[in-house]
């Protein structure tokens, strides 16, 4: 597993040119998520039109994996119905857990992150944007305002990734 497998061209491309950067105008829910371990942070703005994702913007500071993953996410959920977008989010979570084969149809560019599952500390980075989206969607559907969440990680992902990587495997 080399660097090029982890940092695939698609990832570097999204990192250098995030697809929906910045902040949204009015009429939206905004959430701020951060990962206390490495200091990655992002502000995600989401506007729904009924059940449809009508607008999304990500303003982030962090590593390439977290920023690229958030960019891919923003591209994948825009103009989708929230339940479909959440299904994609779940497919991405499974990809990070190393569960089953990647669903290319659902994940599109997201499959480029398959290699991240082998780097336990980076799984959190890759999930940050997706967790923010889930949070924002739930708040928007419930008619709530935005909020701030420390990304506590999904413990399952960390455990799965650790189990995946036995001592010495990478060496």
């Amino acid at each position, binding site marked *: 597993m080399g*660097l090029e497998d*982890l940092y695939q061209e698609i990832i*570097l491309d999204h990192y250098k040119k995030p697809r929906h950067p910045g902040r949204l105008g009015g009429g939206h829910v905004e959430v701020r998520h951060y990962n206390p371990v*490495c*200091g*990655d942070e992002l502000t995600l703005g989401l506007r729904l039109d009924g059940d449809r994702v009508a607008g999304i913007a990500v303003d982030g*500071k962090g590593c390439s*994996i977290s920023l690229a993953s958030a960019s891919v996410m923003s591209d994948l959920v825009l103009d989708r119905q929230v339940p479909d977008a959440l299904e994609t989010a779940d497919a991405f979570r499974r990809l990070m857990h190393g569960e089953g084969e990647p669903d290319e149809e659902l994940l599109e560019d997201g499959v480029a992150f398959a290699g991240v599952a082998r780097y336990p500390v*980076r799984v959190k980075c890759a999930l940050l944007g997706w967790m923010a989206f889930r949070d924002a969607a739930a708040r928007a559907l419930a008619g709530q305002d935005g909020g701030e969440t420390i990304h506590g990680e999904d413990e399952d992902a960390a455990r799965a990734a650790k189990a995946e990587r036995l001592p010495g495997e990478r*060496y």
Partner: protein
Amino acid sequence: MTTTTNPPSPGPASRAAGTRVGGDLAARVRADFPLLAREVHGKPLVYLDSASSSQKPTQVLAAMREYYERHNANVHRGVYTVAEEATHLYEAARGKVARFVGASERATVFTKNGTEAINLVAYGWGLRNLREGDEILVTEMEHHANLVPWQLVAKLTGARIRAIPVTDDFLLDLDALDGLLTGRTRIVAVSAMSNVLGTINPVAAVAERAHAVGALVVTDAAQAVPHLGVTFDGLGADFLAFTGHKMLGPMGIGVLAAREDLLDSMEPFLGGGEMIRDVNIESSTFNDIPWRFEAGTPPVGDAVGLGAAVDYLTGLGMDQVRAHEVEVTGYALKRLAEVDGLRVLGPADLEHRGGAVSFTLGEIHPHDVSQVLDEDGIAVRAGDHCAKPLMKRFGVQATTRASFYVYSTTHEVDALVAALDKAKRFFG
């Protein structure tokens, strides 16, 4: 001990080699560190994370093995021979550690780590003596270990926390100190050397001023003791905390060296066996120091290992250790300055800094930097280094940190610089 095999206490291979300094030191000692011979991703390991944890020489590992194979028993109670040997080894290790930092053996307490040593002071002294309106003075460059315990105790007592700022030159702002020190100041918590900036703080000068207003000084010497050859009297602090695993010893043991009269006056922090004199159902009387602060079975094997680490460092000579690190750090600062877009967070003057070198590399996140470095077998730290207030002070989320020790070489610095260029090409 006369009837048993003594644990090995050989000095480093270099001891006989005299007083040459610099790169020679690493060349002479590297063979003592088995882990440094391994490969990572098919490349020789370049271990540049000693500020987090040092590697261990075979002399330390052998002493611990000898302890467990020949002398293992619980301490301070058995009447039988092996238990007496274990007790003797444990107390002998305490003596070595106390002498290494010039502290009183009676006032040298073994803890789990440096963090626990500071918590011992925060709860053992702070919780019982601080009152509402009292002030605890910390620094903006404190490791969370010398900050969070004070926050916890402040919350319980109503004391207030204030901070000595750090200048743009990465030094403690001594001009601000006099304004911050008042009759309300009861504790000054100051790191002897920053784990992030590498800054060596003038603890003695701070202590002198703190004592003038009646405050006690708690110094986090987790970086200073392994690298600088500091002494308890030289620093002038009332409490000195450090940890074994950053100074060639094992993980699981730390040290609090204290002023004897203060420790004598303090109530226990943790309760249990070992720390008591007499126990009734409703109350107990407590043991003498230092055992009053060592509840439960202590980490005897780790203490033996730490004793061996102290022997090893003493064999090298701390002046030689410091001279070597100055040389490698100076070389690193020079080479890192050649990397476009690289910004070192820390003093440029070698006199004011140790071998922990933090930097940012353009807009590339430290996690990405360290991932690329790992691919070349280079181990550095990326993150906030348990010093979030300091990260905020300098407006960064995280830094990459390379840190050096007795076995670090200028070749390793070259490998680091080459890999940083690679990271720039990759993410540029």
